[in-house]
């Protein structure tokens, strides 16, 4: 039996040689790869590290989650990459993540996909995998979320959004895998390389995930275009969407006096008027657009002048704000319709550096400080301040009720103060300084965990700024 096994092996090797010879005969010369010039080397990790490949662990990830594995490989030769994803609460790190990069850039422009084989100890979504993370500008990142892996080796394809841009790239492969339902698992990845696949086609691109959106905004507002995707049809007829960095896209504004857009998809709103921002990749128009309706100069709320020592700020650029859970709790199960409060630091609008919340479809909305952050002890404070501007006609019967909740969910008490229609102002800032004693029912204010704005649909669109407690 031993003899026969050996014979079989010999023949397998022999036929393998044959194939290689045939391939060499029919296809383009691979001489370039044999020379010292590795600048277009397609191999990232085939049976081991390719020439010049380095590895760095992402911040907060388990340091040694990645190991080279010589026992488990996709083709029975060389080695594979093994990633041990930690359980939740692992003191060594909360996830497995890192990037494989080269110190000398490579020219990847003749390829159209990064491919690899992967399997896992169980059926899991493969967090994030991609390329273009060079530990520097990460200019050309392209990544796929939640590839499905299971216990069998399977080949995965990440189409390159626009390979002509990758003439000098260092970011070869990166990954980020977290626990699933609190549990860790192991992923093996092998045969990571760039390829030109004739079976990839029909490119399509998206900005704003392919949606046509409109923003009513003001001079000086900056916003960045998101939802940038490249979608290619694969050999099996399925579409593969790749989340793609802005640098793959060319952005255009139809009216640069109203909106300018830079190479990274940052939109700066100018003079009053209308402009449409569109994008393209390699001459192919992307689906989705942003119509910018600039209403002209935005009048900010007056800058607060109170001494920071006497202020506990929830939302203001004049002070350091306390940590909050959210600026919109989206209590949709309770019938909430309110949108907004979801931008960076809660600001939906940043005008000349000053953030403003824009609640729309307002019926009620809560700012939370009780779940993962400390509640506010306002015992020493005397007043509650907020600036509100109503972006619609104020009608009789309109109101906004402010509601403060103390000790949320644990002996909860609350107090409210109602601003009625005779006080609310259309298109002008209303600065309110409300004595905390006026919040009827708020007997204890040592653990304020929720601030509600309630309109019961009477007022639907408001700007909010400078939410803070202060001591007079």
């Amino acid at each position, binding site marked *: 039996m031993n003899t026969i096994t050996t014979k079989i092996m010999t023949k397998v090797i022999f036929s393998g040689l044959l194939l290689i010879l045939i391939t060499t005969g029919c296809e383009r010369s691979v001489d370039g790869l044999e020379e010292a010039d590795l600048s277009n080397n397609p191999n990232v990790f085939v049976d081991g590290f390719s020439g010049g490949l380095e590895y760095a662990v992402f911040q907060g990830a388990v340091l040694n989650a990645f190991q080279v594995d010589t026992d488990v490989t996709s083709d029975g030769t060389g080695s594979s990459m093994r990633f041990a994803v930690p359980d939740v609460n692992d003191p060594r790190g909360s996830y497995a993540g890192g990037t494989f990069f080269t110190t000398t850039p490579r020219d990847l422009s003749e390829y159209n996909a990064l491919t690899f084989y992967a399997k896992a100890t169980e059926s899991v979504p493969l967090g994030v995998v991609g390329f273009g993370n060079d530990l520097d500008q990460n200019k050309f990142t392209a990544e796929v979320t939640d590839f499905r892996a299971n216990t069998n080796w399977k080949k995965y394809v990440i189409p390159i959004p626009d390979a002509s841009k990758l003439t000098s790239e260092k970011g070869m492969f990166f990954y980020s895998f977290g626990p699933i339902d609190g549990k860790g698992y192991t992923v093996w990845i092998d045969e990571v390389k760039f390829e030109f696949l004739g079976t990839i086609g029909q490119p*399509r691109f998206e900005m704003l995930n392919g949606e046509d959106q409109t923003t009513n905004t003001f001079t000086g507002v900056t916003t960045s275009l998101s939802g940038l995707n490249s979608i290619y049809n694969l050999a099996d*007829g399925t579409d593969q969407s790749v989340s793609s960095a802005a640098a793959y896209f060319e952005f255009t504004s139809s009216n640069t006096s109203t909106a300018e857009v830079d190479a990274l998809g940052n939109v700066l709103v100018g003079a009053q008027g209308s402009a449409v921002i569109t994008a393209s990749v390699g001459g192919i128009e992307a689906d989705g657009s942003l119509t910018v309706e600039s209403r002209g100069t935005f009048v900010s709320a007056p800058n607060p002048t109170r001494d920071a020592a006497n202020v506990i700020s929830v939302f203001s650029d004049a002070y350091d704000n306390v940590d909050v859970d959210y600026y919109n709790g989206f209590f949709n199960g309770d019938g909430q319709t309110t949108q907004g409060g979801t931008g960076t630091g809660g600001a939906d609008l940043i005008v000349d550096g000053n953030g403003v919340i824009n609640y729309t479809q307002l019926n009620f909305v809560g700012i939370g400080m009780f779940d993962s952050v400390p509640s506010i002890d306002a015992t020493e404070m005397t007043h509650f301040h907020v600036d509100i501007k109503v972006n619609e006609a104020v009608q009789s019967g309109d109101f906004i009720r402010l509601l403060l909740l103390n000790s949320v969910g644990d002996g909860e008490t609350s107090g409210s103060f109602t601003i009625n229609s005779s006080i609310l102002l259309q298109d002008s800032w209303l600065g309110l300084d409300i004595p905390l004693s006026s919040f009827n029912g708020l007997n204890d204010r040592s653990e304020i965990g929720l601030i509600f704005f309630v309109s019961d649909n009477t007022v639907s669109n408001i700007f909010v700024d400078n939410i803070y407690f202060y001591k007079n």
Partner: protein
Amino acid sequence: MRTMRSQLKFKALIAVVLPLTFILNCSSSNEGTDWQLIWSDEFNGATGATLDQSKWNFEIGRGQNGWGNNELQYYTDRTENASLDGDGNLVITAREENFEGANYTSARITTQDKLEITYGRIEARIKTPFGQGLWPAFWLLGTSNSGEIWPQIGEIDVMELRGQQPTKIASTVHGPGYSAGNGISGDYNLTNSRFDTEFHVFAAEWFIDKIDFYVDGFLHHTVTKEQIENAGNEWVYNDPFFLILNVAVGGNYVGSPNQSTRFPQSMTIDYVRIYSE
């Protein structure tokens, strides 16, 4: 031990034969045949022009039961669904639109009563549409001149493709006792290309006793009279047939389009050429 040995031999044989076969297939296997061009449409003409109606007919409507396959499209003779592109191609375009009660429109053209052939080389250079529910085809049907009906008249499918499988085509013959799902079919897969992103040449070489199917000069499927008769069925390919080009939407073969399907979708035909011996 004996079994083992013979297995080894068999393996060795395959290893040797495979490369040889490859080389043989590089040249035409019907080498003795001297094909003479007898008919062609190169689709040269102005952008947006309709077909040469001395050569082609439009079939209009939804047919019976969606042309027998529960297809979803309404075929029209409008230039929106079939026209020349000005670059020497005919473009048949399937559109998502409400039209005469259907949700899609497309075109189906035939040479019935204008070109009817028996035997020969039938060839077209085509780029297909793609996407779930698209069903482009280049095929022939027997004429019903003697009053017979399908499948007795015979059907020769040179190329049909499921839009959701952009790297695979099928070539099939249908006749009495071997029709629909029981047609005698051969698939051809591209390993590093697609049918919807590049042109490919599809051909059938039809003889008195066999039909050879080619993709890009590669013989991938042969159906012989002997094979059909050995199965107890009838070879129905000695009578005149006419050509059909169409793009169906939905139907039993492909299933319906879904959200991933992008419309409009086009089949681009560079030429159709007919040769005889």
